[in-house]
């Protein structure tokens, strides 16, 4: 009995953990949707043979059909091609935003939580200030200051997420700092930076991963909102938010709004589902 229970808890290596997991079908579907989005952004030419910029004026405002899956827009451009080609900047910019949020927020939270004292007080006030300004308004202000394009919109979105990551990181670090293994590492003569790097960071970052995935979905939404208001790249770029914004002037041909909107929703929903699955399996 003892032997059985010992051998039933193998060391969790990367592959061992993956094969041991029972992945629910919804999560597999979510991964497929995300994989498709990544495929669209890496090699859009593989998924459509239409040109996203130059259309055929004779074929304008056609409804969805076998030839044009999402219909065509007011200039006769294939909307599916526009969505596919717009994925790269919609998805990559969300990635930039998350990286900024995780790195900047992570460092702030790590230092505040680990050193405590006046460092913590200073950072805590900074985070309070960032939280007091509505996230979207903050993003709008930052993008106004640095200029309207999609990369800047991504930077602005990242800045507005710093406070969230700083908070979570700080509370995780404080939790970890009190653990016995950290105390013993201190007693064994480990330096502060060694403990910070070797023990606190890996443990604290566990709950940051699902949050980062969740933030990825949220960033897609915020960047789409900024693009919708016209703070991203101007046309003929085809960011999802921009496509919806153009479509709103043609509500008589509703697929111009619904098709890019459904793609956005499906992507964000999948990302959120993956985040929840990561949280549950942790």
């Amino acid at each position, binding site marked *: 009995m003892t032997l059985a229970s010992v051998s039933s808890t193998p060391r969790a290596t990367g592959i061992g953990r993956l094969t041991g997991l029972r992945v629910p079908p919804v999560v597999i579907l979510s991964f497929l949707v995300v994989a498709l989005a990544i495929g669209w952004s890496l090699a859009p030419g593989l998924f459509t043979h239409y040109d996203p910029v130059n259309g055929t004026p004779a074929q304008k405002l056609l409804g969805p059909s076998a030839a044009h899956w999402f219909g065509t827009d007011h200039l006769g451009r294939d909307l599916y091609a526009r969505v596919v080609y717009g994925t790269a900047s919609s998805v990559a910019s969300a990635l930039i935003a998350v990286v900024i949020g995780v790195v900047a927020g992570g460092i702030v939270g790590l230092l505040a939580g680990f050193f405590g004292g006046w460092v913590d007080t200073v950072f805590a006030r900074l985070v309070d200030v960032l939280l007091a*300004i509505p996230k979207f308004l903050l993003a709008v202000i930052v993008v106004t200051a640095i200029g309207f394009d999609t990369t800047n919109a991504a930077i602005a979105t990242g800045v507005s997420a710093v406070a969230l990551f700083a908070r979570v990181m700080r*509370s995780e670090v404080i939790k970890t700092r009190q653990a016995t293994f950290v105390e013993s590492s201190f007693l064994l003569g480990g330096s502060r930076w060694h403990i910070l790097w070797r023990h606190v960071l890996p443990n604290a970052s566990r709950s940051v991963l699902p*949050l980062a995935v969740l933030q990825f979905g949220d960033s897609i939404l915020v960047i789409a909102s900024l693009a919708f208001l016209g703070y991203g790249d101007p046309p003929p770029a085809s960011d999802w938010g921009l496509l*919806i914004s153009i479509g709103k002037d043609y509500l008589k041909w509703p697929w111009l*709004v619904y098709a890019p*909107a459904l793609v956005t*929703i499906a992507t964000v929903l999948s990302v959120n589902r993956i985040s929840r699955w990561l949280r549950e399996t942790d």
Partner: protein
Amino acid sequence: MSKAYFDYAAKRLLQAIVVILLSYVFTFVVVSILPGDPITNVLNNPQNGFTPNEIKEIIAAQGLDKPIPVQLWSAFSGFVTGDLGLSMRTNRPVATLIAEVLPSTLVLASAGLAVALFLAAIIAYGTQFLPRRFGQGLLRGFPSLFLSVPNFVIGLVLIHLFGFQLGVFRVIEPDSFWATLFAAIALGIPISAQIAEVLIANLDHESGQDYAAVARGRGLGQMRLFVTHLLKPSSLPVITVVALTIGELLGGSLITETVFGRNGLGSLVQRSVSTQDLPVLQAVVSLAAVVFVVVNLIADLTYPLLDPRVKLLGGQERRPTTADDSSLPISKAVTR
């Protein structure tokens, strides 16, 4: 009222004032140190048609030729005494510009909050009564669906369905009752998701407690158990969550106003962004920060009075159940 409560209240009040003042300085610094300055972008832009004399006048009136710390000091002392300065574009007092559009945004935001609370209550309390296998999963799925839909899409769908197809409201009259209601729905749906998530988590937590098991053992039906035991302890912590969504309510109305063509704070921000009217932007952001901080201060101060389980220890607040140090419902879900 104990001494501990007064210590706590004093500490929170002081903290709130510090955060408001710092957020003003922060916004000012962000707007002025980042590349892009209004003189070259707006005043010298031939499209705006300012004459060289006008440009000189505006620069002098706004003090744009002075070093940034001096500008900050004069703007900051103005802010503390309630003077928000002049708009760069229209040369009218910023306070007047804001006062003109504020009522419209307040109506939209409060209606949006009402919609959010209503939806969240239906979703969360509904999970208590639907059978576990059938229906409950559907209700529990709503928050994550709502969180994945951009609110301008909800707005456009509502305009398309109810404005154009069914003709419930006319799009060219954005301030009519029905148009306002649909704008409030578009604004409220994403926010309801956050409230519902916390509410559901609290309900699950409370119904797993010993006292709930005892009550069930005494033969209480689900309805009685919910009303007499679960409702209050699971709903009270939501006060703090609602206070935290104020920021999103303001940020969301910015987009919703654009979609529905309402003239409110959001459209003022839009106009000021396109003309780089920094004094107006600065004022709107500071106002939003003030509203957020004050609402959260009120929530934090009334909460210990409403929930007797909260113990105040040496000016520190100890909250029950899930509302510990995580601030947003999302982070709450993660750190729990």
